[in-house]
């Protein structure tokens, strides 16, 4: 299983029936493919849609129905559309139960940097700052390292997305949470030892006694 698939399948385990969920671009988008059986969630696209469905079939594209990345999507029965003020009212107001976003760095207190690398990548924060400040639960989907360097860091060197700590970080190696503001290893990926995680992590991790293997949802059906 490749890293993005593993991460998406683990995060899909966090989905609960009736949740309103916002998925970022990249690995987070894959989470929609692994919704557990019997769980029904609402996916929000922050450009103004709840009930975002998969990519339309050939010939069924509607130019006025896209996700936040501008890609054509479908809408499920019971979908709702709205303007951007409402969309971010939902996000900041705590109505989004969970958001899944990519990360560049997460520090040992759970603070996230994910929107810019000054001098190199300045795309703008889009909705990321509002999502991290306002969603009830913030889950970061990211590779554990980039170019051999740990993305879990003692302190973010990149500009922060929010001072609010994220709730969960899921990588291809581990699941990390931040109880009492301290990075804590909860789970390891199948076949990965705690020592492997610690070796790959450039910051101290608290290791819980009950560290266990990641639960994963089934493979996508489609």
């Amino acid at each position, binding site marked *: 299983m490749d890293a993005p698939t593993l991460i998406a399948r683990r995060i899909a385990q966090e989905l609960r029936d009736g949740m309103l969920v916002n998925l970022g671009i990249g690995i987070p988008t894959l989470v929609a493919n692994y919704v557990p059986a019997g769980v029904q969630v609402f996916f929000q696209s922050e450009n103004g849609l709840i009930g975002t469905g998969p990519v339309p079939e050939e010939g069924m594209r509607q130019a*006025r129905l896209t996700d936040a990345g501008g890609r054509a999507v479908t809408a499920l029965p019971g979908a709702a559309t709205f303007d951007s*003020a409402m969309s971010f009212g939902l996000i900041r107001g705590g109505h989004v139960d969970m958001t899944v976003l990519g990360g560049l760095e997460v520090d040992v207190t759970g603070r996230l940097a994910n929107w810019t690398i000054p001098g190199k990548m300045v795309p703008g924060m*889009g909705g990321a700052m509002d999502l991290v*400040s306002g969603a009830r639960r913030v889950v970061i989907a990211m590779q554990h390292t980039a170019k051999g360097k740990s993305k879990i860091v003692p302190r973010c060197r990149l500009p922060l997305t*929010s001072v609010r700590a994220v709730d969960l970080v899921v990588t291809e190696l581990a699941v990390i949470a931040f109880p009492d503001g301290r990075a804590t290893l909860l789970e390891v990926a199948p076949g990965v030892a705690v020592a492997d995680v610690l070796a790959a992590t450039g910051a101290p991790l608290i290791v819980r006694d009950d560290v266990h293997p990641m639960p994963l949802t089934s493979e996508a059906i489609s």
Partner: protein
Amino acid sequence: MKTIALEQAAALIPDGTSVMIGGFMGVGTPERLIDELVRRGTGGLTVIANDTAMPGVGIGKLMRAGLVRRAVVSHIGLNPETQQQMIAGKTDVDLVPQGTLIERIRAGGCGLGGVLTETGVGTVVEKGKRTITLDGTTYLVEPALRADFALVSAFLADYLGNLTYALTARNFNPVIAMAADAVIVDAEHIVPTGVIPPDHVMTPAPLVDYLVAH
């Protein structure tokens, strides 16, 4: 509300003015108005919008033509041309969190001085901003934002100027339609008064100053 030819509508907008433009990555952007501004070469614009779309699409056309002096947007990641112009100093880009941007525009349109938001507290967004603490929580004071013109893309417009938007093409459009001194609308379809039921009107007619003729 006045019905106006496309050429006349674009001619209302002088060089150096501020324009709010509807759309999200080019979806829900009044393309005909953009094309006409490019044809006229209306320059030195301050554009307030969610993003600058993609190269050659929507607001991306204004960027490519070098008509934008300043962009107040939340995202330019899909338009490398905007990034290049920013780095070259041709265009000033103010990056604003998307929820803060739309709320500042809404405040401008609704006669509020501004709003208080936690978004951006403790980040580079806080720089130069006032903060206020209520009940132990610190908020940024984000001031209202208005423009000289709003360029709105609608799905239906009736003869009076009542508007609806379709699906995700709504985005910034109904919000900017309240926040500019002059509101210019390009609608996909113009329909008789009464075709849009009162409960489905998203922008009431009195907000519209000009409707581009078909």
